[in-house]
């Protein structure tokens, strides 16, 4: 009971962050559970083109009279999956390589940082465009992986710098004097002091993965898989939806979905920061 209450207090102590958490939960539920409840409307209804929101079509209809809301519900899963996968993979690569670089030093450090420099200098979008032409990016795991491989260097550098500074701290020196072992020093002394930073960067990595992916889809560089906010945006664009007042709902719905999800993620970082930093915690 007490733990439940204190968990609740911890979650609600930052209002903006808590709203972010609710937003993220909402989008996750909508994208992963929603498709089982809301069937995807694929039927062309000539008499219902570009309708405003109504009880029947919550977000109006598209250029072929199909329900936009159902498309939003079905189009989120892929975007979210790629975001999570790319975020986790790039953060994982960054933390591993950054920490390794700092702790190993010498030529390993030089090699990893050299690689990071090279990746940083490659213009990502053109490379993705070329890659999209070479490989079929239908599989979203592969797409996430490619995004991750391009996204790790800046975080890796930051992690390296943090590890280098943390390992000179007095409490790490004390742990060395106490002979607590390298494993303990890395996992219990250094890592916990970076965890909020890492988690927050994970979130930011997700947001940039969303932009990269939606951008690719929008430009048509990734083969349409049918259901994706990016595809919706692209279709709305090519149908000239921005030119008609009535089609506003068609083009704005995926934009709003992406923007709201991003906003929720960014707000969530505030809460995470408080949760992972005991100094900011008001409750014990």
């Amino acid at each position: 009971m007490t733990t439940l209450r204190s968990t609740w207090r911890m979650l609600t102590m930052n209002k903006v962050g808590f709203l972010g958490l609710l937003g993220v939960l909402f989008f996750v539920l909508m994208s992963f559970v929603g498709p089982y409840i809301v069937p995807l409307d694929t039927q062309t209804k000539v008499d219902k083109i570009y309708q405003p929101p109504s009880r029947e079509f919550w977000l109006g209809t598209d250029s072929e009279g199909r329900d936009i809301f159902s498309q939003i519900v079905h189009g989120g899963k892929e975007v979210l999956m790629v975001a999570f996968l790319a975020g986790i993979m790039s953060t994982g690569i960054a933390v591993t390589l950054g920490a390794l670089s700092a702790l190993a030093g010498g030529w390993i450090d030089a090699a990893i940082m050299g690689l990071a420099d090279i990746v940083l200098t490659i213009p990502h979008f053109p490379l993705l465009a070329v890659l999209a032409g070479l490989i079929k990016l239908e599989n979203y795991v592969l797409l996430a992986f490619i995004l991750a491989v391009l996204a790790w260097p800046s975080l890796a550098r930051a992690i390296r710098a943090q590890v280098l500074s943390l390992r000179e701290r007095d409490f790490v020196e004390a742990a060395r004097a106490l002979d607590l072992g390298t494993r303990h020093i890395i996992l219990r002394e250094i890592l916990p002091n970076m965890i909020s930073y890492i988690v927050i960067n994970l979130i930011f990595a997700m947001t940039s993965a969303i932009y990269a992916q939606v951008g690719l889809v929008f430009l048509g560089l990734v083969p349409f898989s049918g259901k994706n906010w990016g595809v919706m945006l692209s279709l709305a664009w090519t149908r000239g939806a921005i030119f008609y007042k009535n089609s506003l709902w068609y083009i704005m719905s995926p934009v709003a979905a992406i923007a709201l999800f991003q906003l929720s993620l960014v707000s969530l970082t505030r809460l995470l920061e408080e949760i992972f930093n005991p100094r900011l915690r008001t409750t014990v």
Partner: protein
Amino acid sequence: MMRTSDTNGLFTLKVDNLWVTYQAERGKVQAVRDVSFALSPGETLAFIGESGCGKTTLGLSLIRLLPATARVQEGHILFRRGTEIVDILSLDDRELRAYRWRDCAMIFQGAQNAFNPVLRIWDQVLDTARAHGVSDRRFIRQRITELFELVQLEPDRVLRAYPHQLSGGMRQRVLIALGLLLHPPLVILDEPTTALDILTQRSVIDVLRDLKKRLDFSLILISHDLSLAAELADRVATMYAGALVELGSVWDIYKRPYHPYTAGLIRAVPTIRGERKELISIPGSPPDLIALPSGCAFHPRCPYASERCRKEQPPLQVVEAGRQVACWHWEEVAEDNGIRMKMDSAQPGTTFAIPAPREHSLSAQAPINGQDVILELKRVERTFKVGRRMVRVLDDVSLQVHEGEVLCLVGESGCGKTTTGKIAAGLLPPTSGEIRFRGHNVWNSDKETFRTYRRAVQIIHQDPYASLNPTQRVSTILTAPLLRHGVARNRREAKDLAMELLRTVDLTPPEDFYNKYPHQLSGGQRQRVSVARALTVHPEFLVADEAVSMLDVSIRVSLLQLLERLRRDLGVAYLFITHDLAVAKYFAWEGRIAVMYLGRVVESGPTPQIIHNPQHPYTQALLSALPEADPEATRSKERIQLRSLDVPSLLNVPTGCAFHPRCPLYEAGVCDKEVPHLVDVGDGVQVACHVVARERGIA
């Protein structure tokens, strides 16, 4: 000169019933409570007290620089400008601008670092003058040149310099000159010598005293350093929990304090003069300014406290001419000279023995050299790479510490004492030379021996805020090493032991501390947790690197007493690193002191010898420069004048004896040619000085 405070007479500044509060999340912080005092022209008034007692807030409110969360609840601050009297609290922004710097200048704590690093000093002087309405360049130039000469700075060189080209002491002197630029009749100095080395501190004190003599201004000195107040102040005001508790002339107060808190503060400071005296540690800690105790705020820590103190707050009343005290029992304190403060600080002995780690212990073995030397540094040298250059931080350092002994390492910053400590603790390998632990050459031994040594030697760091991992609770900090080394077999046993350890370091009741995070503890409590953590592995040797220098006076003493108790009861030997010779004297009276200068030991010997009969001119200079918490002693002390104030950089160590450019005994052709080696001069004292060696007929 002593000046009496006649509140009806002429005053420069007069504060009446000032109340200042901060709005914090938990409630109102009563930072300044009903403070009244008057400052005569030309007078120096020092506010003393521990951190968090409202000194700085008071200073800031005098110049109306309080942060946005602070509010002056009540009171008046009156300033006399010629014949007119100005109420500072009612000034508008424009008038305030005129008041600041022209009428009243404040020099902040740590302001040595407040210069803009990309502007030359001259530009910053100019900016300051212009901001306060003076724009005649020639006038400014002339004025600052005069002032720089008074504070012993070469005007042309310093004005052209960028801040990073000046040492900390020089920057502090520039600031003092800058503060006096527009001839303000009132100057507020907040901790002017904190974070400066002893010799630099001395130069700042001398400059201040000289300035006071030549230019006529009133000075408000805010300092936790009782020695500084003893040197400079005419009158002293003790602050406790935001209120003035005692006010009087510096001579009277230091000789015979009437308030138990003042008595405690003064007796908590070690002195150089005379025999080693036991010091007072005021029990407990300053109160929470949000929830003040009832009655007298000091009563929970006061051995004189009675029922009345718990109920009624004593007013600050005049008890003698020029003497005010806020204490119901001041007569008792005056009578027994505050002696009761001491009785309550008696500490219990340590009865608790920490079980040794299960693993094989070296200490059980017979020492191979057959002596009781526990740790020995032999001709240790250490270099660091700075950019492309190699800097030699330690050069030919040899030290020995016997079992249960205290060796104090003393010197100014950059002399290599911290590096020596790290090398002694096995945290840093020497570039050359040997570290022997019970005779074993540790960097040249098997892994087991090294690990045993590593655990037997623990380190206590200076900064209580950096030495504990902020993400770990006290429980984790203490149980991790206990479990790791098999001192405890399981979590429950580890918890019991950790509780015992907390009790050993006087963190009682331990339940209150066991689940805390470091940020929930005070500085002194954190240092105790650090000590407890070191004790988990049953150390035989502790390296205490300025372990008490960041703590308030009263807390400092109790931590020193704890360390001393561990030595007595557990037989722990110490390498005690400090910049403060008075602390060294107090802690290592039965031990030895080694004085370091630019990476070398220049003198070492038994503590009483070093303190009372120093041989090396550097040791003599350090001792003579040290201010003491006794106005008579500190003002009558003979000072050794050094030939240069500036410490040479390690990047450019002088030839021969590294001290020769500053040494008063310098002999050309000898001191700048050959490095002097330590030679025995009797009484167990070793000195590295050509002149001393020749005079003793050793050479």
